[in-house]
């Protein structure tokens, strides 16, 4: 970059003589104008009084804050016009404390503006660059140090050191391997399986085909989820199992993901969005469209839950369902593909 313009030297650019170079009277500060408080002792006293009133008010509010903190129970509520019902303690302590803090600030600034000197002063700036000689000697010294160390000439030493340093962070990576288990097949399987009954959540009521009117939509879980959670105390299974069950009239149901996966027009799809995993909640009966509230991916439940719009790339996996001998809705098997967001190994 030979054509860069260095700032060193006075003449920076070969520009025409423009007015920037003219030393017009504007290069001096405008004359300082005295304030009222500077010339009128009454104004100065008034400003002094104003400042001290603010500080004293602050002190008063601090005391009020302590009183309201102690006196107002935390479970007391008040109705504030325009703001609704709110915690009385929060309102009182916050207001008084806020005023106490604010008034100190207002007082200090009023003090600075009215009573402290307001004449602007000028300070000069210096170039940050050191002299050429100092720079040169520093460069020489670094070079000399490098030579003395033999870093450049002793290749074996240098390379072995670099090898050692390059390997040293690896244990940190190895340590990180224990931050969590290695993925196995968890992302491909859920609690659903052959014969697992559908239950509503959280009541755990078993579902029968008769419970469904045409157009009605129910959020459901596998019957074994409850026991699993009692045993495992985490929400991992629940993040994968939820399904939406909906009944459509046979002429509405244009396609399903597999032959015989519906039961008399009742279809079940994974509730977990295939985009980034939000539970999908918004269903429009007329169009059978299901909309994800997070990023608005839209799926058509009447057409194998294919993507109609939005950033999701894949349809919602369908759960093949049937009815057992007692007349309850059951799954024919687990999902035939992984539910939820894509991952690299999904293929």
């Amino acid at each position, binding site marked *: 970059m030979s054509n*860069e313009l260095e700032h060193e030297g006075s003449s920076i650019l070969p520009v025409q003589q423009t007015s920037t170079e003219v030393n017009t009277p504007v290069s001096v500060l405008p004359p300082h104008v005295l304030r009222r408080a500077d010339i009128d002792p009454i104004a100065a006293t008034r400003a002094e009084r104003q400042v001290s009133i603010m500080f004293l008010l602050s002190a008063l509010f601090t005391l009020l804050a302590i009183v309201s903190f102690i006196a107002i129970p935390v479970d007391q509520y008040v109705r504030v016009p325009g703001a609704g019902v709110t915690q009385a303690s929060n309102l009182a302590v916050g207001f008084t404390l806020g005023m106490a803090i604010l008034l100190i600030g207002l007082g200090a*600034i009023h003090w600075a503006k009215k009573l402290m000197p307001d004449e602007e*002063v000028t300070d000069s700036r210096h170039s940050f660059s050191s002299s050429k000689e100092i720079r040169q000697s520093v460069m020489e010294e670094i070079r000399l140090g490098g030579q003395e160390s033999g870093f450049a000439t002793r290749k074996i030493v240098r390379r072995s050191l670099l090898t050692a340093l390059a390997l040293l962070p690896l244990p940190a990576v190895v340590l990180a391997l224990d931050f969590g288990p290695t993925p196995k097949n968890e992302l491909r399987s859920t609690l659903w399986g052959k014969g697992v009954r559908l239950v509503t959540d959280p009541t755990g009521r078993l579902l029968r085909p008769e419970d469904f009117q045409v157009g009605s939509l129910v959020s459901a879980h596998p019957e074994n989820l409850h026991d699993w959670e009692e045993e495992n105390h985490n929400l991992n299974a629940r993040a994968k199992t939820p399904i939406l069950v909906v009944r459509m009239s046979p002429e509405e149901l244009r396609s399903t993901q597999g032959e015989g996966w519906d039961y008399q027009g009742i279809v079940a799809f994974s509730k977990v969005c295939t985009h980034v995993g939000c539970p999908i909640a918004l269903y429009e009966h007329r169009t059978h469209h299901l909309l994800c509230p997070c990023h608005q991916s839209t799926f058509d439940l009447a057409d194998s839950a294919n993507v109609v719009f939005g950033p999701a790339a894949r349809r919602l996996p369908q759960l093949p369902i049937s009815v057992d001998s007692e007349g309850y809705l059951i799954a024919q098997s687990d999902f035939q593909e992984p539910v939820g967001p894509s991952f690299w*190994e999904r293929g």
Partner: protein
Amino acid sequence: MSNSVNQGPIDKSIDGTVKYLDDRFSTAGFIKRNMRKVFPDHWSFMLGEIALYSFIILLLSGTYLTFFYKPSMLEIVYDGSYLPLKGIKMSEAYASTLEISFDVRGGLLMRQIHHWAALLFVASVSIHLLRVFFTGAFRKPREINWLIGTGLLTLAIFEGFSGYSLPDDLLSGTGLRIASGIVLAIPVVGTYASYLVFGGEFPGLDFMSRLYTIHVLLIPGILLGLITAHLMMVWYQKHTQYPGPGRTNNNVVGYPLLPVYMAKAGGFFFIVFGILVLVSALVTINPIWAYGPYIPDQVTAGSQPDWYIGWLDGSTRLMPNWEITIPGLFTLSLNVLIPTLILPGLMFTILGLYPWIEQWITGDKRAHHLLERPRNNPNRTGLGVMALTFYAILWISGGNDIIAQMLNLSINAITITMRAMLIIAPPIAFVITKRICLSLQHKDKELLLHGEPTGRLLRLPSGEFIEIHEPVSDAKRAVLLSRTELPMLPVPASHDANGVKTPNLWAKKLQRRLSHWWSVDQVPLPTVAELESATEHTLHELSEAQEQGVELTKDTPAPTSNH
């Protein structure tokens, strides 16, 4: 006041402290140099101050919250005083946040101060960044501080996101679900990374305690270090200043640290703090009790993240559903990768490198301490507005469902429109901004040459009507004349004097073309001769007016004065 004879107890304590410290650390020289350090005054310089003060308030209120918050995902049954959730299963994290809100005196206030301060922190950092950008304060010698600032903004966004995820409520839990989906989308190692982050499958039991350490220790530690460096650089390099009378590239005009700036800056801290406390007392923020605990199969409609995440939400919503799948081999989720990792990565890289990009284009390696008026660098201002437009469209798209609902429009139509706007609007914004800047330059030149119109018409003996112009005031003139010319690089020679081919000639040619484009449209400042004759003309006009019996205003210079 206090030279050799010191009597008062205050004088004594001052002397004692100065001597004590100086004997041990030889601090007198440092204090002497810095006590009366000059800081220029301007309202826009307070933006960075607001950021600093909100950070301090965040440290104070955050420390308080750690005394009550439990970063545990262990499931318990709620038994606190918030009745609607009594008996419901939830994580200890959520239950302890409810406890802070309903059972700890002042707890809700502290939570709300912390949340409001966080919103203000990211907002003031962002607006401070815009101020620094549009006034060219990032130019040499302050490029490295700009880079640190970019790092601070990035960390502030991460810190905010990690913070509002800690209560483990339904809204923030949904945010974490999305975050886990993003990690899963990373090519090759995504699944492993997600398992390491969450300690297995999402949501697992480990994540909250890990996020907690990141939120209260790791990121604040780095933020604190970077903020210290940021301020030390400002201190050492001295603050930039706006052009004006008496202000040059070689001086700094303003008020001394002691006492004026100390009182003003110190007072301003209390004002920021006080307003945050008042707002927290009066306006509810993040009512986690209304969302309920996080349950992976539940969601609230119209979920919105905090404002500074909105643009990422928007980019995710706008992205077309591109996904590459090779059955049996891999799935590459471009629909997630591009809007959440690649695009922000690219945006922040360009942001951080901008000082060097502009420097490369203009070849301007001069040190700049005088701020540039946005109009005087139309391309930079144009690029800035272009980037802002891009950001704004992403941000608005983050609320496309709310817009659709409020305006009763089709969400698909809005999304498609926004996709198009994202590509079309920024260049249009650039062109319009650049034109406005150039017009303002013309106006400035006009003012310098012909003075300010007074609105008073005069009929000359010849019958001609003229409007009387007054020369611009000294203060205004100083501002108008403050422009530094934009340099234009010379055409690179293909061979040097010895006939050796210039290396990277194509890059130099590109650089030259860009430099030409950058400065070619500038409206040249009037030359000295033009300025003098114009002043003469104005004064002549004024004297003519006076002869005609027009009374001039008080502050108009007498026609004889030699401007």
